[in-house]
């Protein structure tokens, strides 16, 4: 990493530390009840006291999130490909998908419990449903963003439909697909938590809901902290995969033309 990157990390770390200390100090100084806002030290103590228990629930939420997201990628990209390849499907399915996207998915969550029971399936389904729209819409956008002269070139080279799709449209769509996936991974986490809120005995969503029942505010904060870390790590992992998969795109962002 370059010196500038390290400086950026340092600035972020220091500002977070300052905020946490301020929080600790203000809560003590203003005598805020721990049930309203526990000090960060209490949250960390709570987290440390039952760390394996927290990790177990976090693991469950992570699996549901990644599972729902993975399903959304496979189905979403597949749908986008058939939509772009068929004018009929674009008029029917795509219009339907864009319309459905405006329905608040959270409102349908209880339906999935009725349909799929109280196991992991309804949570996966909700994470999937919330995440899939961003992927379909951005992938369709990407597949259609191929410049006209590159399509002409492919035709002049007598490229088959499959070659045009896999060697021209698909790589051209990748940056847009990654943009969609970055939105979708955060949405999948939201979906997993919503699913656990609606009915669950496991996961961080369940931890939050049950702690709320006993007014254990420190426990709620501990779970929220884990969720925040999980969200950031998932996003960072995708960004890393993106840089690996699109070296040409990264090179465009980082270096200026050398000649």
């Amino acid at each position, binding site marked *: 990493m370059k010196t500038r990157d390290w400086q950026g990390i340092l600035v972020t770390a220091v500002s977070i530390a300052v905020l946490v200390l301020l929080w600790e100090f203000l809560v003590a100084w203003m005598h805020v009840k721990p049930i309203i806002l526990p000090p960060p030290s209490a949250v960390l103590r709570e987290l440390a006291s039952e760390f394996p228990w927290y990790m177990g629930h976090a693991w469950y939420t992570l699996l549901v999130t990644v599972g729902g997201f993975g399903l959304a990628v496979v189905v979403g990209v597949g749908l986008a490909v058939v939509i772009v390849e068929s004018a009929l499907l674009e008029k029917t399915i795509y219009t339907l998908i864009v319309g459905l996207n405006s329905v608040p998915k959270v409102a349908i969550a209880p339906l999935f419990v009725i349909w799929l029971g109280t196991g992991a399936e309804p949570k996966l389904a909700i994470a999937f449903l919330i995440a899939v729209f961003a992927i379909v819409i951005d992938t369709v956008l990407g597949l259609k963003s191929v410049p006209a002269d590159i399509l*002409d*070139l*492919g*035709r002049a*080279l007598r490229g088959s439909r499959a070659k045009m799709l896999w060697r021209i449209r698909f790589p051209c769509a990748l940056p847009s697909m990654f943009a969609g996936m970055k939105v979708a991974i955060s949405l999948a986490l939201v979906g997993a938590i919503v699913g656990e809120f609606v009915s669950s005995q496991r996961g961080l969503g369940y931890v939050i809901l049950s702690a709320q029942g006993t007014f254990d505010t420190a426990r709620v904060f501990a779970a929220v902290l884990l969720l925040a870390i999980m969200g950031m790590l998932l996003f960072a992992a995708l960004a890393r995969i993106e840089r690996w998969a699109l070296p*040409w795109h990264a*090179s465009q962002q980082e270096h200026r033309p050398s000649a």
Partner: protein
Amino acid sequence: MSVGHEAAGIRIDRVTRVFADAGITALAEVSLDIRPGEFVSILGPSGCGKSTLLRCVAGLDTPSSGVISVAGVPVTAPPEHLGIVFQRDALLEWRSVLDNLMLPIEFRGGDVAAARGRARSLLKMVGLEGFEGRYPAQLSGGMRQRVAICRALVDDPKLLLMDEPFGALDALTRDQLNIELQRLWLAEHKTVLFVTHSISEAVFLADRVVVFSPRPGSIADVIEVDIPRPRRLAVRTGERFHGYSTRIRTLFEGMGLLKEDA
């Protein structure tokens, strides 16, 4: 360095192209015979249908009436062994320079190893040796267009179509690429159909300059350029070159495209 394909002749026979939706006649009864191995510039103002003609030859567009044949075969789809270069280089940003050059082989088939060797020697001819692994975003506009030209030549086409390939480049780079294109052409002797709106570029490169009149596009004049090759940039200030340019400029003035006294 050519490995075998013979240059193709082109016969354009009373080709008309009407865009019915827009109510535009882009080409009206255009006829032209191009010999195998000939370099023909199509010169005309913007919107005169010269690109439409090139797209029809490439099989990317279909004439409303009339017939185009390449190497004796009527064009109904993109012909085999065709190289094409557009105004914007149409490089695939996600592929390295060498992988961009391999696209025609992947699409049309052929000997991959031989093509790779030919790709390297073409890049060397345009001064891009050592750039094989770079991505297009790391190249300048002139270098990108050089790569696009090499890509069009990599599987030894019978015919090279160029649609204002240097239109987006600065004047110096443009001159340099004119020289390099001449060198490539002298080495390969492909049939070239070169669309441009620059008088000096058209004359400098071509055996024949076909001057188009504005919409509906039709051939106003065909000028044989009798200047020996290899031509140096300095020929552009010579008497003969001046004679050709003046003749073309007079044609454009007659069409009302150039007016010195308003």
